[in-house]
């Protein structure tokens, strides 16, 4: 029983990280209807920024804040430089650009920071262990941060002018620009926020998986799968999908399939959802005008 509880707890924490990345994907999807394949690599690079600032002797929170700010700026830059010129371009061009960014950022991280993996300290280690030792301080911190980000994202999309403008711009760019929304600026901010959320996810993942140019490979597949399972346009869906995948992955790995097939499980789950219920568990139905 305790082993089972441990597996669930560990899965829950992994699920929070998947959920964060899925949230960033959802953010970009809602703003632009694109799936950002470079999301994981952008998060990885931001985490490297935090790590090098930590190495330079900055306190953790300052370094983390700088990394999140870097994520924001990088996101806006990617939108402005790489994607805006492609407005209305065929999907193939857009996917090609995302894949190119993914390869370039990963290689650049290897060039700049080298190949060794580094361990990154967790800011929550001082919290001790909770729930009869099931949850480490870092796990608890991860959960808290995820909930905070989800709450602020939901509030942002529902209650703020900017959030509403962003939803409008994604739904119908032309008529929202006619009603006074600065669509370009809104898109840039959407990308920036997604970059910042990605950076937070990277910071939360780094103490668990070690920092390295390839740290996000497996995590990102689960992030994609979480977004697809939950519905790629739904923030609560992303959280649900992330947690379900995190817990399911751990339980299946421990009791059914063994650890070698973790990625295959993500693939199978994603494919099954896409075929059976393409809009995901909580996603809205997409209606397309011909």
């Amino acid at each position: 029983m305790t082993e089972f509880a441990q597996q669930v707890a560990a899965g829950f924490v992994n699920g929070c990280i998947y959920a964060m990345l899925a949230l960033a994907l959802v953010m970009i999807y809602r703003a632009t209807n694109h799936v950002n394949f470079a999301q994981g690599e952008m998060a990885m690079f931001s985490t490297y920024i935090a790590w090098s600032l930590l190495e330079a002797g900055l306190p953790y929170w300052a370094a983390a804040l700088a990394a999140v700010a870097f994520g924001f700026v990088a996101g806006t830059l990617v939108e402005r430089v790489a994607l805006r010129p492609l407005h209305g371009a065929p999907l193939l061009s857009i996917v090609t650009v995302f894949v190119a960014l993914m390869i370039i950022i990963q290689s650049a991280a290897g060039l700049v920071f080298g190949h060794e993996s580094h361990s990154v300290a967790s800011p929550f280690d001082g919290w001790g262990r909770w729930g009869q030792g099931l949850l480490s301080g870092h796990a608890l911190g991860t959960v808290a941060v995820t909930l905070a980000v989800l709450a602020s994202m939901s509030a942002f999309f529902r209650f703020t002018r900017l959030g509403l403008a962003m939803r409008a711009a994604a739904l119908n760019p032309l008529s929202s620009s006619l009603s006074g929304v600065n669509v370009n600026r809104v898109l840039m901010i959407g990308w920036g926020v997604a970059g910042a959320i990605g950076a937070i996810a990277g910071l939360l993942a780094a103490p668990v998986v070690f920092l390295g140019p390839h740290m996000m490979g497996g995590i990102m597949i689960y992030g994609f799968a979480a977004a697809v399972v939950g519905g790629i346009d739904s923030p609560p869906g992303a959280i649900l999908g992330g947690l379900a995948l995190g817990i399911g992955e751990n339980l299946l790995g421990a009791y059914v399939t063994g650890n070698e097939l973790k990625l295959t499980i993500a693939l199978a789950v994603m494919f099954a959802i896409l075929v059976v219920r393409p809009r995901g568990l909580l996603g809205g139905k997409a209606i397309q005008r011909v």
Partner: protein
Amino acid sequence: MSEPIKTFAVPALLAAGVAAAALLLPGYWAFKLSSILVLALAVRGLQLLIGASGQISLGHGAFFAVGAYAAGVLVSHQWLPAYATVPVAMLVCGLSGFLFGWPATRLAGPYLALATFALAVALPQLLKHPMFESWTGGVSGLSLDPAGAPFGLAFLQADQWALLSTAAWVFAIYAVLRRLLDGPAGLAWLTLRDHPTAAMAVGVDVRKWRATAFAVSAATVGAAGALHTGLTSFVSPDSFTVFLSLSLLVGVALAGPSSAAGTFVAAVFLSFVPDVAEKVSQELTGVLYGVVMLAAVFLLPLLHRWRARAARAASPPPAADPIINKEKSSNADAAQAT
């Protein structure tokens, strides 16, 4: 170029060139040329899917791996010699491509890219899994006896024979694909690429043709995988990482959506750039690949526009854009064909 010259003289010249190359080139360069041909075939397979049917796959390395393993299993059990495994590998990959492509036809653009990406990431894990170890050799893969020339051609060195048989397969498959693209299948693909709704309206069964495109393209890439096994006499799960799939995509970005000649140029690039770049740094290959993809998206359209403007300046009466006309006529043909 007139039509008979194009259909007979060009292939004859190519065949003569390859035969001469096989007899004259020293071992290493014969091997290099063969691996370029194999890469070109793989790029051609993905190009068919993307350029002709308009579907995006980030995971075609997986089909390359399946083809390579199919050949590896056949050769290691001594059921077939290496150069004869290609049809079996094509059949296996065509089937698995169809089985993957049939449900995937429900997935539009980015979702299909996602699903195929996950396939590329997950496949090496699956190949290493102990469950299949008796077939795949697990983590260490399969080491095969290098294939020599068959009886009667024993005067050829192994590399020369490999080049000849590879070239024969590659050109044969290119010819078949050309016929396919010029026939009803090609027209159906082009219509559903350009406008799926209109394609449905003129009676093209979108789902069937999308899955067929997936199967044909997977079979082509699988043939490349089988030829790769014949060349290297070795298959291991770590040769088929997601980077292979992405390199194929780089190849298509370089070759353009439909040019068969372009796939050879792309293969030369994919084959030599890593060699050169890794002398400087291991990471440079990735940066160069990414830059090439960005250039294909951002610079090529500029180049085309500039050339069109130059052409217009050269001939004052504005001629109709030939590409648009061609597309219109192919659409009309498709409507008639179906």
